[in-house]
Structures are given as structure tokens and as C-alpha cells.
């Protein structure tokens, strides 16, 4: 994809911002994994190249919409969440080491899906006011959703509409 100067500037800034954000989210999820599931240091490895690839591919999706459909100045939060979830779950930037699997620790196999879920709901939630701050609180649903992200074929646009429905469910009832 050939980018013009405006697109290049936009891309470079967004890449820095998104890398910074994902680094922060990864640090948090490793903290939580250690606290909740008993992982120890080094049992979750971050593949830097894959993180970079996730950001690149996600931004290309956003760029395609932003600059192809000129009326869309600010792509909506559900698409952002859908595309980010898709690429994280597809490329899996976090690796769980063999020692952790051998200990049969909880949620080892769903760590990337957790990362995607956290990034997505916080993107949707940050612009909402209480009491609608948390879009989903049902634990069974979350588990089913994470399972689906891990084991079932997923599609970024289908995920976007799923996030839209979760976000707007109060209005749709």
C-alpha cells in the first residue's frame, strides 16, 4: 500500500500511540495473570515482532476505512475493537511457556483473548459514563466469548457488530 505524506504522518503517530497502549495492556495482563493464576516471571513471553505486526495490520484496516471512505473521519469504537481483537487473536503476541502449562495454571490458553477483550471493552467504555461503564458483566458470557475467540473462526467485521450489540444492548432491549 503506497501512502501519501498525510497518511504516513497519521500512520506513524498512530503506530507509536497503539504500541504504547498495547505495551501497557500487556504489562497489566501479565500482572493480573501472576496475581490470579500463579504465573511466575518469565512464564509469559511477549513476542515483540508479533506485537508490531498486530499494530501494523490493525492500523492498515483503520487506514483503509479512514482514507477510502472520506466521510468517516473517526472510525467508530466498535470497529476499532473488532479489528484489534481479530489481529490479536489471530497472531497471538503472548506465548505461555511450557513450565506454566505443566503446572496446569488457569487461563493459560486464553491469555491473548483476554488481552483483546480488555483492550476492546476499555476502548468502548472510556467514553461512557456510569452506570453504563461496563458493557458486559455476565461471567458466563465472557467465558463463552473468550472461548469463541480462541476456538472458532472469527472475522473482524462480525466482531465489530458483536461489540456494537454489546454496547447498545440497553438501547436495543
Amino acid at each position, binding site marked *: 500500500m503506497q501512502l501519501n505524506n498525510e497518511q504516513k504522518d497519521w500512520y506513524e503517530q498512530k503506530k507509536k500511540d497503539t504500541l504504547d497502549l498495547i505495551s501497557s495492556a500487556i504489562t497489566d495482563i501479565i500482572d493480573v495473570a501472576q496475581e490470579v493464576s500463579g504465573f511466575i516471571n518469565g512464564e509469559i513471553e511477549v513476542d515483540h515482532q508479533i506485537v508490531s505486526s498486530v499494530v501494523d495490520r490493525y492500523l492498515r484496516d483503520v487506514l483503509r*476505512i479512514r482514507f477510502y471512505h472520506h466521510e468517516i473521519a473517526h472510525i467508530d469504537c466498535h470497529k476499532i475493537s473488532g479489528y484489534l481483537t481479530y489481529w490479536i487473536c489471530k497472531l497471538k503476541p503472548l506465548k505461555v511457556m511450557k513450565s506454566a502449562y505443566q503446572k496446569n495454571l488457569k487461563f493459560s490458553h486464553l491469555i491473548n483473548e483476554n488481552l483483546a477483550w480488555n483492550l476492546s471493552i476499555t476502548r468502548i467504555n472510556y*467514553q461512557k459514563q456510569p452506570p453504563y461503564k461496563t458493557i458486559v458483566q455476565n461471567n458466563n458470557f465472557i467465558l463463552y466469548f473468550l472461548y469463541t475467540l480462541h476456538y472458532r473462526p472469527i472475522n473482524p467485521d462480525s466482531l465489530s457488530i458483536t461489540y456494537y450489540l454489546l454496547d447498545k444492548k440497553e438501547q436495543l432491549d
Partner: protein
Amino acid sequence: MGLYEELLEASKDPAQIAFENISLHNDSKETDYEEWKKELKTHKTEQARMMREVFTIATK
């Protein structure tokens, strides 16, 4: 106007067709990464609670 002419007319601006209701695809503001990061920090406690509960269900 025949079908061919209608299709030709419609094909001049495919983006307009695909995104007829543009407001559904637009947010009012650009993504604010600082706010997003703050929300991640706020969410960390909820994340830990959720993980504890969700994965208790998972291992029952």
C-alpha cells in the same frame, strides 16, 4: 433508465452505497489514547475480579 444504466450510475460512487448511513460508522471524536490508557488502569481491578470468577467457573 434500464438496469445497465442504473448499475453504471450506482457504480460511480461505491463508497456512498456501502456507507449510506455514515453516522453508524463515525465516532464524534478521534480515539484518545491517554483516556484509553487511563481506562485500562481503572479496569485492572475489574479484570482481576473477572478473571478470578470466570476461571473459577471454567475449572468447575
